[in-house]
């Protein structure tokens, strides 16, 4: 079997690249071993939010110009990164998810622990706050839970928010909406998790013609005259953003949904929108299979073998490796080495374990481990035994040279590098239709 492009890994990076290739008319397949990190992610996209000295970045695209040359953003370039993010925003809109931004600036997004994190793109249901003055115009905050939902603690969130100078003087209203008020029947403890709650609400509440009104009056009653109402993201997977908008119209309140502990509904929403978009563009998504190894000749990758079809290699003229970091098994470690398990690509990591481990489990500093990854050329081509592989590109968390958590850059790197890799491929393929 022969494809134009094989993308290995169906997370944010892989799917962004795959959608771009499919849109350009290339015969594209994504092979993904399982669900990606999106199922746990907030559903917002961070581009570059935090400087080395822990200060917030206001203008991410300007700030990335000062990053070291090994950083993925320096390879992609600010212009291409912005194009990629615009493309991503359009694709999400085509799949029914509106993302908003503050132009060139970052905004603040609330976490379930009450922290304010810099992000660049947010879903509509998650109210974006001005990054440096998040409390502007907000004197009363209502944090409302559905009674019994354990993965969200209003008091904990309020305590977190109060640590922010802008909110330290604010008044906090903490309340629960009883399941009986919503006419939902949760008989089992497991029904009080984010996804199960959304399913129960869909079945018991929103199936009724006045279901949304029952919820909106309950919210109104609980929130009083709050300037900002925070609720955990448990109301709906698909159509969750529209639901928040409807509730805002019905209540006249400003409502913000925050992602909870996994599964994160806004993240799941984003993952299914991306997969749907890819299939609409004629791409093939193969889940549950794992690429085991590849066949290399003259510094090119010609085909890959998978766990489920070991006797039938799949070939392509180009490949994108977007297998994620350690968590997704795109990178592996043992006591002595860090490695890339699929092709044995050269990983940039120090030889001595002392340099990538810490004696203290948590010392408040960014962990070195998250800085390591595959070493690539300016064009994102990796090396194998020191030889550059010309038709293989790497994208997303598998790359080296950035620290996604410490910099708040994971979504932007995934989208930017996925987009960049796809465009490199399109540029070399005569049959690709130039649409951009």
């Amino acid at each position, binding site marked *: *079997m022969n494809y134009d492009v094989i993308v290995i890994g169906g997370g944010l990076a892989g799917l962004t690249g795959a959608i771009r290739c499919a849109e350009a008319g290339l015969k594209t397949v994504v092979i993904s071993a399982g669900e990606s990190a999106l199922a746990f992610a907030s559903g917002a996209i961070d581009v570059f939010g935090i400087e080395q000295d822990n200060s917030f970045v206001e203008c991410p695209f300007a700030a990335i110009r000062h990053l070291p040359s090994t950083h993925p953003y320096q390879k992609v370039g600010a212009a291409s990164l912005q194009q990629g993010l615009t493309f991503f925003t359009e694709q999400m809109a085509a799949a029914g998810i509106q993302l908003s931004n503050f132009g060139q600036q970052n905004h603040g997004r609330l976490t379930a622990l009450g922290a304010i994190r810099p992000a660049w793109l947010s879903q509509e249901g998650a109210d974006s706050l001005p990054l440096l003055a998040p409390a502007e115009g907000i004197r009363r905050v209502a944090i409302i839970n559905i009674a019994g939902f354990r993965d969200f603690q209003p008091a904990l969130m309020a305590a977190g928010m109060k640590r922010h100078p802008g909110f330290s003087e604010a008044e906090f209203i903490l309340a629960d909406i009883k399941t009986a008020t919503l006419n939902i029947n949760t008989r*089992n403890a497991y029904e009080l*998790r984010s996804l199960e709650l959304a399913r129960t609400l869909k079945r018991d509440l929103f199936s009724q013609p006045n279901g949304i009104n029952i919820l909106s009056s309950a919210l109104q009653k609980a929130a009083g005259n709050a300037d900002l109402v925070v609720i955990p993201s448990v109301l709906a997977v698909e159509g969750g953003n529209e639901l928040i908008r409807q509730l805002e119209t019905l209540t006249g309140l400003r409502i913000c949904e925050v992602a909870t502990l996994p599964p994160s509904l806004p993240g799941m929403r984003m993952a299914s929108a991306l997969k749907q978009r890819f299939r609409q563009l004629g791409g*093939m998504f193969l889940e*549950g299979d794992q690429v085991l190894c590849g066949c290399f000749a003259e510094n090119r990758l010609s085909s890959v073998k998978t766990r489920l*079809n070991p006797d*039938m290699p799949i070939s392509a003229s180009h490949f994108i490796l977007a297998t994620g970091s350690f968590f997704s098994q795109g990178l592996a470690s043992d006591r002595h080495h860090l490695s890339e398990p699929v092709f044995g690509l050269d990983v940039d990591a120090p030889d001595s374990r002392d340099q990538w481990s810490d004696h203290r489990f948590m010392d408040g500093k960014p962990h070195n481990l998250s800085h390591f990854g595959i070493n690539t050329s300016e064009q994102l081509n990796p090396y194998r035994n020191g030889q550059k592989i010309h038709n293989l590109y790497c994208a997303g968390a598998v790359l080296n040279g950035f620290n996604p958590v410490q910099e708040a850059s994971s979504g932007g790197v995934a989208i930017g590098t996925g987009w960049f890799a796809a465009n490199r491929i399109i540029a070399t393929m005569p049959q690709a239709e130039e649409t951009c």
Partner: protein
Amino acid sequence: MLNTIDTSFDSCIKCTVCTTRCPVAEVNPDYPGPKQAGPDGERLRIKNPALYDEALQHCTNCKRCEVACPSGVHVGTVIQLAKARHGGFKKGPREFILSHTDMMGSLSTPAAPVVNIATQLKPVKKLLDKVFGIDQRQTLPKYTHQTFRRWFQQQKAQQNRFDRKISFFHGCFTNYNDPTVGKHLVAVLNAMNIGVTLLKKEKCCGVPLIANGFFDKARKNAELNMGQFADSLADSECVLATEPSCAMTLRDEYPEVLHVDNHAIKERILFASAFITREFAKGNKPDMTPVNLRVAYHSPCHLIKQGGVIHTMELLNSIPGLEVIMLDQKCCGMSGTYGFKKENYQTSQNIGQGVFDQIEALNVDYVVTDCESCKMQIEMNTAHKVLHPLTLMAQSLA
């Protein structure tokens, strides 16, 4: 003692991804979902088998949880094995009827015309519903008067003329209910200069037996089939199955669920599309004429699980003129015998709604899928006729 317990389920990192993908948990609040039923519950069951949860009966063994798990936990299999150990199955006459597909087939086909009319009659359906709990809203599969094996008798001489040969595991449905797909496989392979032989004897692969808790019977069948495969592989290249669930069972469930070792020949048991596309890749492609149709392809759960969708799509895409739209990969809800049971009827319908809605929204000539059980469910719930990929390919042969 401890080291004899399989604890591979403990590579679970409790991320809940499996539960987000379980079609049963999505519509039936009585089912706690694969995380709790599988790796979480297993920890308790190892301590004390009495901590078994009766809710496990709701699992359809669709394996979507396994496909989605980022940590490679065999969630569906853990659940099936727990059910088997516990014996937590209701095994009444209904379970026997629904699961012993080959026995019911051999009893019914001689009287096919009568049985077919009878099982479509309202009073009979009511009776089956009342007495056995087989939901009367379901259309029962018809039986064929001439079994596939009988039809094949007349093909034998023709098949012997080919140098290359494969063995065909036809499965119960093709033999007793509708031989069409089997006939089309023979036509397609012949056009590729490959002859077909049957196993001297074959028993149901075991998929409905596993689903209904008849593990001993399933294991017996597996052992018999394995013996047959070993014999037939002496003078044929491989064993092919056209039914995704049969192929998955023969390849994966035999060792994992039934503990019947098949490693020596596993790579020679193939799903038909996989074999055909491999031949295509070697340049053995028959002449095909355009089939100018627009079709929607539905991927069966058990084909996704074995990584076979890529092959069927390759096969369909090789048919000139055919426009194939791939549906979002959702479960149709039938799951073999599951949807026939009265208590599952509504769950089964609710699961399938996502598929039915997608199909109705598209303007296609046909729906295409590899699985006979999906076909039944889709035909019952949409206005579309469902074809097997091999039927389209047979149609395209010049």
